[in-house]
């Protein structure tokens, strides 16, 4: 790719935090990095991947609202985690996390367990028990 062809298609993927160095060849035949804000095909596949995530979050949200699952189900999707990863952060069995996904079991959780979950999801306990308060 020529230096002059390095794309600058901004889809706010980098949120203005930095530009990505892309290697290219300049007019003298030397390799040079050019800072780029993005490229359409890449933006497109990133958006698609996030669509999948957002979709999962929305489904989990509805399941929590309808009382089918506990708020943990919502925060797992929110943090792009799965049961195995949450279990590792919590230092408990996967099966135990699975049990906590049931609203009835979730209601009986000790304060210390709730605190731990809140810490893992980087939220307050109030937000953990009431997903309406989630502000992120």
């Amino acid at each position, binding site marked *: 790719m020529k230096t002059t062809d390095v794309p600058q298609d901004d889809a706010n993927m980098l949120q203005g935090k*930095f530009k*990505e160095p892309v290697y290219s060849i300049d007019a003298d035949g030397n390799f040079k990095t050019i800072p780029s804000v993005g490229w359409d095909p*890449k933006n497109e596949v990133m958006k698609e991947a996030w669509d999948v995530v957002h979709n999962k979050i929305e489904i989990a949200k509805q399941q929590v609202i309808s009382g089918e699952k506990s708020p943990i189900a919502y925060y797992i999707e929110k943090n792009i985690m799965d049961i195995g990863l949450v279990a590792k952060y919590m230092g408990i069995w996967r099966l135990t996390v699975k049990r906590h996904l049931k609203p009835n079991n979730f209601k009986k959780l000790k304060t210390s367990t709730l605190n731990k979950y809140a810490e893992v999801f980087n939220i307050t306990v109030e937000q953990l028990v009431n997903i309406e308060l989630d502000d992120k």
Partner: protein
Amino acid sequence: MTKKQIDIDLKFTHKQSAHCENGVVSNLLGYYGVALSEPMVFGIGSGLFFSHMPFLKIGGIPVTSFRPIPGIIFKRTSKRLGLKFKKHKYSKPQKAMEALDENLKNNIPTGMLVGVYHLTYFPDPYRFHFNAHNIVVCGKKDDQYIISDPIMSSYERLTYNELKRVRYAKGLFAPKGHMYWAEEIPENIDLKSAIVKGIKHTCKDMLTIPIPMFGVKGIRFLSKKVRRYPQKLGARKAASFTGQIVRAQEEIGTGGAGFRYMYGAFLHEASAILKNDQLKKLSYDIAEIGDLWREFAVITGRIVKNRNKADESYDKAADLLLVIADREESFFKDLKSAVN
């Protein structure tokens, strides 16, 4: 007892790079007076690779990768250049942080592995659970750690708790507080033999691994898979699977086209050091192959954009992968003979 506040600022020069592993090595070496560019570190460490592993899935999608497993570039580069690094993991987070403070007090910039998901300064669309990101901690000010993150354009800061959190991220490649620092940097580095070793290793990896998932064979394998995606998975899932290939290919840190351009930059630099014109010609060859990978991304971008419709572009994408495989095969054969 009041906590004593210590300000430490090592005279560390942060340089932005494309890839974190090369960037950290390049920046750390710079601190000790060894000027080595990012492509150099990448090439000597044999960072170019290809693999498609259908059984290894992240988020339900098979993994395609343009690099070897994390840590390998670092290991190979230090071995080939005769650099000695001290490495340590800590079972207790508090110990890991104390050890870091001790290092900073002794003016030692310290590299470490961290998880990306909780890195506060990272752009949100790129925050996912990837645990093999490399950063250097190069100071402490107002109780905050000064971070040289190779992919950022300038220094960042993290609090004690924020840093502890990313150092103890969980999941695949969990860093477990892993940190490393230079122990011995030789004064005279034999760059020439290191370059040749690096090139030979890459050729070997791309041409001769007798498993169809790796190297040039892996690209042909992927082509076969991509062709079948729409029939096998349906339009929606096929788009996700193909999109993942492009996400890996154009991930931050690749410098574009799955590291192919960066490898071109390496060969270009190497040709001057080894006084080998053949390598210069080959540097443009691999850049052209990079352009083909970018074309593959363009086709995929279109597939993904029209993801709810059935699409005949999959054949086009698969055909292009076969062309790329042929080009890379003859490229690495030429490269092998150029350094022999």
